[in-house]
């Protein structure tokens, strides 16, 4: 039994966390709330560390390491609350890898691997297609601002649209977490190319497993900050951390994180080995991590008292990001409902 990342990967996780702490300090995340700027340094760092290329096969400029390095990076991204176009990394890239035609892969994957391009997935509702031209509006799209290529759905198929085309318009939307940009994309008879695969589930599961790691990273950092604060802040002659209302709250957060981490780890294994239980494992990881981060963000803010409600504190960074991550890829209730349906139908995990 070896239910853990290998030693190499544990070292990589450590490196990633330290590198991102430096490239994307919480102070930068705070600035992003006002500027909405992507953290280019952090993005480049992920490129240098081979993370952007890890889910991409070597034929197309990737390093073929598979999803595990990306899961570890996602945890570090969560830990640093970095402003990074993760939708490209978690979702769009694996979708092009799994469903793109050879030409599409050849055209986009090398650029995605090097970080010179980003992609977005705008498949939430179907668009109209005629003669390989797409028309319609889709909103909100995560990571659409500045994306070079978009994946859309029309006529029960997936299509790729080069965002450099003239007949596309992107309009940034105001979102609660400006570190995760959302936009509206309008297609006006924009040329598109058909993707060869239409099974979008693998990429979706890939995305939610990555997000689960990001949520766990964020929740852990929020918990750490609250532990530090509760050991220093004094009230009624004692540090607040000696009071049980605070202790029990933090113990409950830790418990939820540990359980969520166990689910995420299993889902990463399932993803990495192509196991048939991925849908079940991914749904469990998604539901568990969403709950853990929402709870951790909300309750660690509470531990900071009035300071937790200020812009100066870190609490709102976690509070915003927890909300943004809960909102992507469908609400938690839906994931729990999907999970229940699978369980009631008798699905089980492999191990």
């Amino acid at each position: 039994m070896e239910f853990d990342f290998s030693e190499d990967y544990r070292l990589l996780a450590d490196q990633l966390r330290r590198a991102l702490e430096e490239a994307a300090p919480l102070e930068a995340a705070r600035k992003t709330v006002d500027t909405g700027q992507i953290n280019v340094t952090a993005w480049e760092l992920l490129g240098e560390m081979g993370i952007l290329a890890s889910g991409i096969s070597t034929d197309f400029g990737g390093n073929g390491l598979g999803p595990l390095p990306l899961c570890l990076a996602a945890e570090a991204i969560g830990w640093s609350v970095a402003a990074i176009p993760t939708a490209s990394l978690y979702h769009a890239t694996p979708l092009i890898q799994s469903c793109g035609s050879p030409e599409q892969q050849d055209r986009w994957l090398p650029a995605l691997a090097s970080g010179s391009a980003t992609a977005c997935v705008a498949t939430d509702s179907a668009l109209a297609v005629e003669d390989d031209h797409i028309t319609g509006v889709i909103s909100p799209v995560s990571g659409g601002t500045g994306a070079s290529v978009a994946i859309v759905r029309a006529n029960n198929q997936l299509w790729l649209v080069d965002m450099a085309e003239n007949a596309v318009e992107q309009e940034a939307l105001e979102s609660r977490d400006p570190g995760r940009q959302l936009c509206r994309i309008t297609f006006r008879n924009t040329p598109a190319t058909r993707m060869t695969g239409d099974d979008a589930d693998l990429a979706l599961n890939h995305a939610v497993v990555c997000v689960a790691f990001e949520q766990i990273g964020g929740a852990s950092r929020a918990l750490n900050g609250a532990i530090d604060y509760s050991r220093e802040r004094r009230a009624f002659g004692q540090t607040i951390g000696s009071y049980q209302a605070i202790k029990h709250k933090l113990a409950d957060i830790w418990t939820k994180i540990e359980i969520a981490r166990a689910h995420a780890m299993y889902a990463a294994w399932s993803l990495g080995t192509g196991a048939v239980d991925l849908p079940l494992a991914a749904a469990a990881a998604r539901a568990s991590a969403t709950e853990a981060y929402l709870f951790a963000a909300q309750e660690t803010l509470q531990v900071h008292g009035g300071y937790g409600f200020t812009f100066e504190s870190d609490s709102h960074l976690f509070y915003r990001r927890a909300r943004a991550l809960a909102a992507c890829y469908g609400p938690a209730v839906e994931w729990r409902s999907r999970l229940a349906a699978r369980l009631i139908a008798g699905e089980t995990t492999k191990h």
Partner: protein
Amino acid sequence: MDFADSPIDAQFRAQAREWLAAHAPVTRGRGRVAWPDDATLVAAAREWQSKKAAAGYAAIALPREYGGGGGTTTQQIIFRQEEERYDVPFGVYEIGLGMCVPTLLALGSDKVKERFVARAISGAEIWCQLFSEPAAGSDLAALRTKAVKTGENWLVDGQKVWTTGAQFSDYGLLLARTDSSATKHAGLTLFIIDMRAPGVEVRPIRQLDGGVEFNEVFLSGVMIPDEFRLTVPGGGWAGAMTTLMFERLNVGANIGLIDSSTLIDISRRLETSTGRASDDPHVRDIIAQAYLNDRGLKLLTYRTLTNLGRGQLPGPEQSITKLVIASQAQLIANLLLDLRGQEGALVGSALGDGWEAVERSWSFGAAMRIAGGTDEILRNVIAERVLGLPAAKRDDTTRPFNEDAA
């Protein structure tokens, strides 16, 4: 990541499986057999224990020289996973083999080990734990039962309570105060007590669920020979902590509570006035949440096995299990009983197949939130030992005990 057993463990599992198939009572599905009375339970447990002992499965991780299996904790857990599939008599030897015998091995003299360990493992002698008292539960060090040295013996007076299995035990671990003028934790000593000695009176306590598994134990002038002392006088607190550590390390011990699989099973078959229970969105949501918890705990056990395989002790993740599983069993049981409407107020045996296990979780879930450290104490332990939060300020540890108790 690799979920496979090591080759040695895989071989161990295969052999255990084969042995169980040949020797264990028939599988009877989920839920434990209800035993008509103690005598039947103890007789069945003794028989099962001696069969296991003869095959080396009685105490797998304990040394062979005392009749243990000489294996690893991992193998102990593997055997439990396999044994789980059968309705074997359960509970009689848990405290003895999980807590008392490891304590004897850690603290006892050679003579003590020779006298007691093999007999406990073979099932010949049953053990219980006499720690809690009416005025000392979570705050165990507040206990008042006194042991006074008289010549070569100790004379014990006092009262213990919640002593599981005292009614059929032969020996027990007894924590008593030997020096009232010392501070609360410094005046305690750990002993072995002969449960058949004169002056030991066991009175059953009737429980919420109607059962009588635990007892009050009155101790009046009970003689304990000095060679039954397990720690230096005044060293009992550290000794008791050793026992409680073994309790925590007793990984994978089955507490027989229902989980998400029972909820799925029953709700799939249950028709309510608004349709099939498993179609109800609220029920489905609890199914998902319960699964997230118990599947999560199972995965945390994988982590413990990983640590054990690396030669490390199980980590703090073990303290999560009881905290999560017991209150969840209450939640699931209440939901299922609720779905039966007015019928849900009937006793389990009147509700049909599988419902006795539900009723048992309704009642025993409550007990498991208290036994072996309450939910609140476990949260304190996580906060202080895992997260490093400061201990609550207290003023009961520095004064002599007899000043405090006065």
